[in-house]
């Protein structure tokens, strides 16, 4: 197989690159060598024949690695998705596998599918989003390839060195991988989402090992919403325990979200108390968001919550407790009763 040779050469090139940093005149050539050698498979997500745009962040991450980038999609009637993906800027090729067995992204057969195609393509890197799909699938792929995956990366320093938050974002780890194939999942909010236009990738059919799937997909219950997707929204309004009840949450938060064109999020306390759906939870164990504006009300700012939103560009908080930890990170803090302030804010935003 070519992969180890390629990786060896790649590592050598990378080492050269590092050593030669002191001699800038040689650097462009080494970088060129690196670009030729890196080849990345970016796992794209699709749902009912539609490409999931937030999965394009993995392409942006792959671009930081240099080298060629192939996209991968699988599912039934996948050709239209593959054609859509071929227009995404940055992709050289789109590999698709048309088989309804992959529609639900079950890792029991999707992982062997990826392993086959990764081996066939001799990729040095495999990149997927750190979404529910990527989290479920990629470690299984990594284990099958005997690779220690690197999860939820927020930056790429070189072809083998990656940056990721640990301890709920309270520390930032830089880690170097010695594996032949680097398998990483990327934090969507840390990379640009990628341009869906301007590319003209070749579209090619992949290998289908048709592994058996012992798991049966039974049903799903997805929260329907016309609002922007929480993970990728430009603006997020978020409510916590201070809202006191589901009725108050539903009375106060949606109008504020509508006034701003924002997605709605919630703290764990609000979700646990039944004020809001689980899928709206922002934090270490929920979603990570990094919108332009994160406006929260009735959230104290526990470290697990801050883990999910402290990379927001502007944080605004309304809380009646002037000592709430949220005010230590908020760019704009308003001490007051949210039951007065939120409706007032909603009204004034609507009329402005």
């Amino acid at each position, binding site marked *: 197989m070519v992969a180890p040779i390629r990786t060896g050469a790649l590592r050598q090139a990378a080492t050269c690159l590092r050593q030669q940093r002191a001699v800038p005149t040689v650097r462009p050539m080494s970088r060129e060598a690196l670009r030729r050698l890196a080849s990345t498979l970016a796992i794209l997500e699709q749902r009912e024949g539609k490409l999931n745009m937030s999965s394009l962040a993995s392409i942006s991450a792959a671009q930081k690695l240099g080298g060629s980038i192939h996209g991968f999609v699988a599912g039934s009637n996948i050709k239209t998705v593959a054609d859509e993906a071929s227009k995404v800027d940055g992709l050289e090729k789109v590999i698709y596998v048309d088989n309804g067995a992959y529609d639900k992204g079950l890792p029991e057969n999707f992982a062997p599918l990826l392993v086959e195609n990764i081996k066939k393509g001799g990729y040095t890197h495999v990149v997927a989003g750190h979404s529910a799909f990527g989290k479920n699938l990629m470690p299984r792929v990594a284990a099958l390839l005997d690779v220690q995956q690197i999860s939820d990366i927020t930056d790429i320093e070189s072809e083998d060195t990656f940056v990721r938050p*640990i301890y709920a*974002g309270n*520390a930032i780890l830089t880690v170097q991988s010695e594996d032949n194939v680097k398998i990483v999942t990327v934090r969507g909010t840390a990379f640009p989402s990628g341009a869906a236009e301007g590319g003209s990738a070749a579209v090619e059919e992949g290998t289908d090992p048709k592994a058996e799937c012992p798991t049966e997909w*039974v049903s799903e219950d997805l929260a329907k919403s016309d609002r922007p997707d929480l993970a990728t929204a430009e603006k997020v309004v978020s409510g916590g325990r201070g809202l006191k009840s589901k009725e108050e949450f539903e009375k106060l938060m949606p109008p504020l979200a509508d006034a701003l064109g924002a997605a709605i999020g919630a703290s764990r306390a609000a979700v646990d108390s039944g004020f809001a759906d689980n*899928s709206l939870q922002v934090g270490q164990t929920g979603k990570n968001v990094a919108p332009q504006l994160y406006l929260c009300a009735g959230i104290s700012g526990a470290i697990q919550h801050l883990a999910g939103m402290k990379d927001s560009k502007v944080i605004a908080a309304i809380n009646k407790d002037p000592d709430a930890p949220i005010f230590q990170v908020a*760019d704009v*803090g*308003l001490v007051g009763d949210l039951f007065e302030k939120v409706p007032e804010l909603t009204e004034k*935003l609507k009329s402005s």
Partner: protein
Amino acid sequence: MATKLRILVPVKRVIDYAVKPRVNKAQTGVETNVKHSMNPFDELSIEEAVRMREAKKPVEDILAFSAGPAKSQDILRTAMAMGADRGLLVQEDKIELEPLGVAKLLKKVVEDEKRNLVILGKQSIDDDANQTGQMLAGLLNWPQATQASKVDIAEDGSVQVTREVDGGVETLKAKLPMIITTDLRLNEPRYASLPNIMKAKKKPLEKKTLKDYGMEDGGKRLKTIKVAEPPARQGGGKVEDVDGMIAKLKELGAL
């Protein structure tokens, strides 16, 4: 005949969730001379296993497992006080195992101990990797149901799991043996009562080493280059009223 459940629950000793970790001066890790406890997701795993027994499922035994420093036995005692029958510690004071290493170790434990159900937490709150359960499932070639919020085991060994996904929940069905990882909404872990803590002291706790599993070096693949403090955010001061808030947000370009 009902399938007997032989459950394995891996638990990890981590810095207590309420402690704010501080990066050490040498930038090699975080200060560990702080309060530690069981990884919160692992408490959910133990609780779920114990509830299976309480729901009269045919639970043969519940084995709590941990790999790590000697102090990890405190965590195993906690697991036993919550209802696990026995504990197994792979003591390793120097090497920090990575998820792949733990998964390989667990595969051997599963085989040695003839387990048919492994319930793990979806992630440990220190490394935040969210990998071990999936890796174990891959190594064993078993079905997996991650981020479970509801688990139903039928007489015939078929398991229905509702899992939390982006945007909502989905329900899967598979047959034992299988791997389940727990999400926060699965259950409300109990507090161990004093009598149960006392009883747990008498439960068997076996100690082994990596060498016993032929994994002396732990199989580490990643090298820590550095651990740094995240960029500090400057709390931007407060405003007097709603108008002040809107004005400030406009000034910051957020509106």
